[in-house]
């Protein structure tokens, strides 16, 4: 698309201030509808599900951080403060749309139907973990739920999402891809490559950028000089919108429209959700080293879950009593799942060499056999729970 040449006779530079991106905001801080805002069409069942999944993830995150501190998990990473950005966006999509996320979007996986047991299986690397105990905690994935397995590497999923969406378009199905990442990942080369290719190749992909203020310790002021991420979309010719990421209705309304646009126009769309990472980057991080609690308190008051709850109470769709019961029920469900799934065995040691290739090649089978004979010499040193693993079966599997 070539814009009509706009010729000037003296040098005049275009500045970032020439482009102002508005922020969609529907609920105010108290959860009341803002005067000039349109409430999106949302039925009670959807609203209830959104609210319940946000509440669930808040509790899951709290419990898992505690479990990590008790040494029951090696690592964890919360979504706290950004629940509306994630649940509000995924709720605007269909269950057959593909999700390609970064690593702070467990709430989207919950929305798709991931159970407490399934979360625990991955976090605890047990025999039921879909990823076979190979990745660090929080690297979920589910073929059944159209949720691509997470990689720790940043932004690699962005060009992949463009390609996935291109394939969806060619397949003629009414499906698109939703791709999540943070404002820090948007500095990677893959972000720029992915956006450009998505635009040039007309890919039905919606990029949801969680602009949450920090990339580990690095504040946005040291991450970029421009006005956030949305204007970059414009630069690549991509329809872009910025929303209050703590306002569930704004995120939901923008996401429903974004999906529609992506599929109608066969084009990428960017939704930038403005929010704040209320927790640490991960359990390996301590934010008191780089930001003040006063700053955090400002955002704690903008809690997206509380804001939605107030709106639901006003609607008569929810009560404090229901809220209390729900949270108690989730707490119990999560702790029960932790207790039961941590008793499960590790995956079989034969999984050490599976899935590297479709079929383990000869050299890998030999390495595996050598390993098993070595383990037999020092049975007490390896496989701390030998009863967990039937490695004789494992050995015969490749013979």
């Amino acid at each position, binding site marked *: 698309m070539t814009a009509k040449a706009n010729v000037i006779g003296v040098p005049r530079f275009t500045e970032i201030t020439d482009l102002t991106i508005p922020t969609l905001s529907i609920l105010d801080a108290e959860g009341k509808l803002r005067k000039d805002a349109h409430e999106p069409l949302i039925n009670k069942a959807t609203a209830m599900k959104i609210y319940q999944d946000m509440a669930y993830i808040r509790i899951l995150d709290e419990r898992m951080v505690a479990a990590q501190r008790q040494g029951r998990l090696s690592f964890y990473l919360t979504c706290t403060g950004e629940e509306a950005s994630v649940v509000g966006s995924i709720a605007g999509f269909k269950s057959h749309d593909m999700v390609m996320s970064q690593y702070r979007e467990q709430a989207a996986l919950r929305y798709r139907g991931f159970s407490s047991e399934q979360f625990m299986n991955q976090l605890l690397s047990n025999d039921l973990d879909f990823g076979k105990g190979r990745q660090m905690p929080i*690297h979920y994935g589910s073929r059944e739920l159209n949720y691509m397995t997470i990689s720790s590497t940043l932004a690699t999923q962005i060009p992949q999402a463009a390609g996935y969406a291109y394939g969806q378009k060619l397949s003629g199905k009414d499906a698109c891809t939703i791709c999540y990442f943070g404002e820090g990942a948007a500095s990677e080369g893959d972000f720029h490559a992915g956006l450009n290719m998505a635009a040039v190749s007309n890919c039905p992909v919606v990029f949801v950028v969680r602009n949450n203020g920090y990339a580990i310790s690095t504040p946005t002021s040291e991450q970029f000089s421009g006005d956030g991420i949305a204007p970059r979309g414009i630069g690549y010719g991509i329809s872009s919108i910025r929303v209050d990421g703590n306002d569930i209705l704004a995120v939901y309304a923008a996401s429903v429209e974004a999906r529609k646009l992506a599929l109608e126009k066969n084009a990428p769309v960017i939704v930038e959700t403005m929010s704040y990472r209320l927790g640490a980057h991960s359990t390996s991080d301590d934010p008191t080293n780089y930001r003040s609690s006063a700053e955090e308190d400002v955002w704690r008051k903008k809690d997206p879950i509380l804001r939605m709850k107030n709106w639901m109470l006003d609607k008569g769709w929810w009560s404090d009593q229901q809220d209390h019961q729900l949270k108690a029920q989730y707490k119990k469900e999560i702790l029960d799942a932790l207790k039961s799934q941590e008793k499960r065995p590790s995956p079989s040691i034969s999984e*050490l060499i599976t899935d590297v290739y479709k079929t383990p090649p000869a050299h890998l089978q030999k390495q595996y056999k050598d390993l098993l004979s070595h383990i037999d010499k020092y049975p007490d040193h390896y496989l701390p729970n030998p009863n967990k693993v039937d490695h004789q079966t494992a050995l015969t599997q490749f013979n």
Partner: protein
Amino acid sequence: MPQINLLQAVNSALDTAMASDQRVICLGEDIGEFGGVFRATSKLQEKYGKQRCFNTPITEQGIVGFSIGLAAQGSVAVAEIQFADYIFPAFDQIVNEAAKFRYRSGDQFSCGGLTIRTPYGGGIAGGLYHSQSPEAYFCHTPGLKVVIPSTAYQAKGLLLASIRDPDPVIFFEPKAIYRAEVGEVPDQDYEIPLGIAEVVTRGTDVTLLGWGAQMHQLHRAAKMALEDGIQCEVIDLRTLLPWDLETIVASVNKTGRLIVSHEAPRTGGFAGEIAAAIQEECFLSLESPIIRVTGMDTPFPLVFEKEYLPDYLKVYEAIKQSVNF
């Protein structure tokens, strides 16, 4: 002499380099006020200001490309890549640019002032993306130097030498022993020359060769072997590119046996290069086949990390196999 750990030794080297040369600039993700995710750059921004020690956006290719430009201009760039697993977006800048900068210009331009520091290796329950040992990829690239310390003393002396070396250096830091590895390290400025291996333990029966965190496994295996009456000569390669062939040849000509060990996968690992070169040089002195004790040819696992790693027991078994051949 103060006792400090390997991480503090890295910090001390950076501090020393920045104090002794105004041109030294440190950059990388989270290295500023925070001091890096491992704290290797702790207090450097406070001491030398934001212009000389600063956070970068999250872009490894940007960090390395920027550092190459900085070095070409005459500054001394010390770039941190937060984990070696994340160095790959910068692969083009390192392999096609940094490594060939001098060669392609007929020495009109160089980026010799570039040092890339990056924590590497397993043993921390880091799974696929916080455990890898990618040194062999870079050892396959003429124009680069590759350095890996195994002690606090080495870390400071080798890092200072790397920063001041006239060629681009990739400096891999064994993160599993960042804090566990403690030793005497002088406060003052000193360098350990690159390209020279260190014979750590003298022995007559079998040569054990490794680098980085793997040295701990070699020393432990050597102790076990000593109880069986086998005297291992333990050598720390320290610089992988260019590597000290002469020291290894002298040792193997004496012992007649060589075991090379690294965490990285076996196929295409640097032990293969060493084994090939040593059989060329020492064919008639060899009493048994050169043995590689390495990681397996799989991505780095999580639950079976212990089984995957080439630990001291695997090295000990290799020693027996070599001696009893």
